[in-house]
């Protein structure tokens, strides 16, 4: 049993990240070369805008901040640990991260409900969208759950997850940092691999298109060139 666990851990934390990264890079590049015009978020904002706002805005701002936080802890772990060296600063960081995690969760739930309940949007929803939604939902729910029940993530991420991630980057995976983590943390890691591997097959590729003015562009301007009388 112990050995079975060992092999499973090796597969999930030592091999799966490379499979995910290989898929990510190979397919992303090949798709861009073969189907550059499919690099789009395929926005459904034109079909429905009111509920879309309460999904899109919290989701995007939430996830960008949360992902940026993961990157900061990955790149500057000593700085994060030094910042967290004072409990009040630790609490401020953790509460801020939780707020943006919850915004992501709310945004994701909102977009999912909209996709399933609004007929026009449901019509333009593909299987890949559904799979992606489920994967993202698992990722965000597990992330929020870990943040609340396995505190303080910003510190132990810098101490344990960062060395693990760097060992992956350096092609010398050291899974000892993660094999004893609680189930929710392991789920978060494995599901992250699934999201990264599935990424190039989905509309998520739009995040790679630069420049990406979605976050700061002016509101959409729509002009109707005919007068109401002319339409009647």
């Amino acid at each position, binding site marked *: 049993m112990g050995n079975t666990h060992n092999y499973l851990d*090796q597969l999930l934390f*030592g*091999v799966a990240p*490379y*499979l995910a990264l*290989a*898929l990510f890079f*190979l*397919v992303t590049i*090949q798709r861009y070369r*073969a*189907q*550059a*015009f499919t690099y789009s978020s395929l926005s459904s904002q*034109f079909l429905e*805008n*009111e509920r879309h*706002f*309460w999904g899109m*805005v*919290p989701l995007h*701002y939430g996830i960008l901040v949360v992902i940026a936080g993961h990157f900061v802890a990955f790149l500057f772990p000593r700085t994060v*640990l*030094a910042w*967290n*060296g*004072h*409990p009040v600063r630790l609490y401020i960081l*953790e*509460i*801020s991260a*939780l*707020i943006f995690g*919850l*915004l992501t969760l*709310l945004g994701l739930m909102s977009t999912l409900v909209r996709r399933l309940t609004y007929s026009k949007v449901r019509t333009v929803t593909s299987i890949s969208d559904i799979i992606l939604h489920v994967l993202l939902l698992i990722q965000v729910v597990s992330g929020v759950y870990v943040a*609340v*029940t*396995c*505190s*303080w993530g910003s*510190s*132990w991420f810098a*101490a344990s997850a960062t*060395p693990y991630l760097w060992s992956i980057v350096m*092609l010398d*995976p050291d899974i*000892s*940092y993660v094999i*004893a983590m*609680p189930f929710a943390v392991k789920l978060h890691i494995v599901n992250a691999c699934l999201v990264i591997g599935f990424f190039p*097959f989905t509309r998520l590729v739009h995040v790679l298109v630069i420049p990406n003015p979605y976050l700061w562009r002016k*509101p*959409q*301007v*729509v*002009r*109707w060139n005919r007068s*109401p009388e002319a339409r*009647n």
Partner: protein
Amino acid sequence: MNDSCRAARKPLPTLWSCILGASFVLLLVMFPESARGQETAAFFKQNCYSCHTINGGRLVGPDLHNVTKRKDREWLVRFMLNPQAMIDRGDPYAKQILDESRGVVMAQIAGLTRERAFLLLDLIEAESALEKSQFEGVKFSDRPFTAQDVFQGEQIFKGLTPLANGGPACMSCHTVRGLGLLGGGRLGADLTKVSERVGGRKPLSAWLVSPATTTMQPVFKLHPIEPEEILSLVAFFEDSAKRVGDDDSVAPLTFFLIGLAGMVLVLGLFDSLWKNRFRAVRRPLVSGGEMRTDA
């Protein structure tokens, strides 16, 4: 038809190209795992020494001096590989060890194979034959703790005094009762009664020399805790075991509710920032409403 349109009609990358690429990377990464190895003595020091001595007396676990004479090797190896399973099976000697260890179950050791377990027993046997084993135990000061030690320990626990070798503060993963506010971390165990749990000053000090849990070991093998820091931390843990502070078991709920309240505030901010947003695009136009050209 221009080139772009022709490119757009090319099929998506085939599954085969993905599988081939992924398999190539898989082969590349299989090698480093096998290259990692540890000498038996170093393995013992890193994984066993925090709870056991050889002829140095009991710590959290029993003194391993002549352990191969007390029990046969096959049984010992089975126990080393999965202590919990032996206890669950109702093995009387495993239960006796558990009782003597105050209910602390020996952690399953990462990377311990059957072959390595036998090598460890060889090492213990050889060390037991010596007059003075290198694993006799770390000597710690036994002077009485002072209020300054307790204070210093609390500072280290909270991270206000960083650990000299760069290890993360205990509060990152652990809590003790009475920390206040949102308390400490909850990834690891509540350490309020850890001093009583492991049997007092000596075992706790030894344990902190090389923390042996699977989560802490990889972190602290690179950032060991200094003896003076261990002294202060043990003083703090002994003190915290005596104190009855506020029960902070509601801290996770408080934390979640603060996060929820913050989220509502940010949503309000979004609503006010985009107050001039389109609330519908087609509806007013199709239904013959006023022509809109602004946002």
